[in-house]
């Protein structure tokens, strides 16, 4: 010790020259400064608001909203409260995000795998798709889908009719929707029985595969068994479990059936395609990160192409794919706030209207931010959990 420090100082180092003390001190001062600054900004804001005769509170949420919302998964009326209007906004954001994530993942997976195809044409088309859609700003794409594609569809009275039950016009896509009837209960019994049978078959097959110590697909028997029972049930049930509610022209618009509005459709198309281009790259890089030797080894022990992918490549690729995939999911959910551009009443759009009608910008902004934060953190947590689960199984 003494050899290492030849200039040993006798006595203690004064604290203002002691690096260990200074380090803590500076951090403390910095923290204090940040807190003070925030406190002053907050005070300033309150002062400013008082000058305008405004107060910060959430009481307005119980007031009657007075404005209408064009679409939403729950019934809403202008006489409902601001709180309910906000909930409609949240539900709309959730539905566009969830459906968007599913679509983007499927399309992305397809193009990601296509980019690795040995076929030159498929490979090139996939590369062009990715480069084209991820390099054009999303807002531009959404507005393009809205004004240049969806709005150019024919008028209501000249709707394109598909199989007599589905209609497409510039007011939306109208599909027949299944309406449950009284005999649905009987069919549900069949479904329950089918499910039970499927579970039993799955376990039996899984045990068998374990005993044989062979790779295989344990649902190979269970899935067809379930489908057969369900199908038999469908025909054996007196009457049909569902009737089709067909959309029909009534007054200004088609009524009945299921409907996707142009706003929802163009936003969904824009978000899915844009994000899928990024997901395709994530999938491609994940698959390519598995070294070639692994595939060759799998083939040399006699695994088929599909088995190689399922048992060797994917278990190693998925842990690499999932973290960047999570980021893409979060991006999609947050990008859905571009809905305002095409008049889709999402969380931000409804919040914006609320801010304008009540003047409570800061509380509403806080509510919007917290909503997005909760959504993002939940998605993140779910994906992290999935990643841990899949890595444990894979290893």
């Amino acid at each position: 010790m003494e050899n290492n420090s030849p200039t040993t100082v006798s006595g203690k180092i004064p604290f203002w020259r002691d690096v260990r003390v200074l380090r803590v001190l500076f951090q403390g001062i910095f923290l204090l400064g940040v807190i003070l600054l925030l406190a002053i900004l907050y005070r300033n804001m309150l002062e400013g608001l008082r000058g305008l005769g405004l107060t910060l509170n959430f009481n307005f949420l119980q007031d009657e909203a007075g404005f209408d919302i064009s679409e939403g998964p729950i019934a809403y009326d202008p006489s409902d409260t601001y709180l309910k209007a906000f909930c409609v906004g949240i539900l709309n954001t959730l539905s566009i995000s969830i459906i968007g994530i599913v679509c983007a993942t499927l399309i992305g997976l397809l193009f990601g795998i296509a980019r690795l195809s040995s076929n030159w044409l498929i490979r090139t088309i996939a590369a062009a798709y990715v480069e084209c859609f991820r390099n054009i700003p999303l807002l531009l794409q959404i507005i393009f889908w809205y004004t240049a594609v969806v709005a150019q569809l024919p008028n209501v009275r000249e709707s394109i009719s598909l199989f007599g039950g589905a209609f497409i016009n510039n007011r939306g896509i109208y599909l027949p929707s299944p309406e449950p009837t009284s005999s649905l209960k009987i069919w549900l019994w069949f479904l329950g029985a089918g499910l039970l049978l499927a579970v039993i078959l799955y376990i039996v097959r899984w045990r068998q595969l374990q005993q044989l110590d062979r790779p295989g697909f344990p649902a190979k028997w269970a899935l067809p068994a379930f489908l057969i029972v369900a199908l038999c049930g469908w025909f054996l049930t007196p009457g049909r479990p569902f009737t089709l509610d067909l959309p029909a022209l009534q007054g200004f618009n088609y009524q009945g059936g299921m409907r996707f509005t142009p706003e929802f459709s163009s936003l969904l198309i824009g978000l899915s395609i844009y994000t899928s281009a990024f997901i395709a790259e994530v999938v491609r890089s994940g698959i390519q990160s598995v070294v070639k030797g692994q595939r060759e080894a799998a083939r040399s022990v006699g695994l088929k192409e599909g088995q190689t992918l399922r048992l060797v490549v994917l278990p190693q690729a998925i842990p690499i794919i999932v973290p960047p995939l999570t980021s893409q999911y979060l991006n999609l959910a947050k990008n859905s706030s571009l809905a305002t551009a095409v008049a889709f009443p999402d969380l931000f759009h409804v919040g914006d209207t609320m801010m304008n009608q009540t003047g409570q910008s800061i509380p509403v902004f806080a509510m919007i931010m917290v909503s997005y934060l909760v959504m993002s953190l939940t998605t993140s947590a779910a994906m992290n959990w999935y990643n841990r689960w899949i890595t444990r199984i894979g290893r």
Partner: protein
Amino acid sequence: MRKFLFRVSALVLAISLVIPLLASGEESILDKVKNRGRLVCGVNKELPGFGFLSQDGTWKGFDVDYGRAIAAAVLGDPDKVEFRPLKAADRFPALQTGEIDVLIRNTTWTLTRDTDLGADFAPPTFYDGQGFMLRKDLGITSLKELAGATIGVTSGSTTELNLADTTRALGIKVEPIVFAETETLYQSYDQGRCDAVTSDKSQLVSRRQSLKNPDDHVILDVTISKEPLGPVTVHGDNKWNDIVSWVVYATFFAEEHGITQANVNTFKTENPEIKRFLGTDDGTGMGGKLGLPKDWARQVIAAVGNYGELFERNLTPLGLPRGVNKPWTQGGLLYAIPFR
């Protein structure tokens, strides 16, 4: 060296703490405008006749001219004004945060806006009402027939609320589509996404001109609301609101007395009120009481003309009749408060 760094960082910290404190010190909007040497005015950029950016890059319109009038009164030069285009939903936050000095963007005066939004209204410059525009070939003449229709509207407007109120009162259901941009609203209507569009009648008249076939569209002969449109200032600076209000009154007064842009500089009169108005009386005159130059009203009229001239220049070309927007002496609603 470390001591020096410590001192510097302490100084920086101290300054950063003090600056926000200083910034919160009240500076009146009038002083702010004078020090800056220019007025910042929030306007519409998509409404021909009221506020729009013309092809040669100049701002034109009725609301825009009122911005110029205020600049003329305060700074003596109608060109010392910067126009900020604002969406309907952005206008009140822009006013509350002090980003703009005055908002003149076809804004309706309502109780909620006067109280909860921290806005102070100057006298209305245009009395409007909400109407509906739709395709002629639908053959619709009353609101009840609109049941089930898709109706386009802009967000953050009183129109959005009036539409909900009216349909509830009539007991009909309509599908509202709420657009953030006026431009997208009329584009979608033109493409047939909506059956009808609802807004202030002046806006419908103004925007009908830019549809593909203006003659295919008709404005229903129904008015569902009162829409007094006027300039807005932020709540809490009464002196500034006085100035904006009296600039509006000055345009009314000039029309009542036949003072025009052409004759304002040579107007001969022995009427003491008109002399006070023009600033040709003795002393500091009316301008002094407002904190403005003595000849402020003359500057206003010289810059933009009286109300009638403003209307004729901007709104008559659209085909808007004057209606109730006439001086009270002719049976209208424009009534200047005495210049005394």
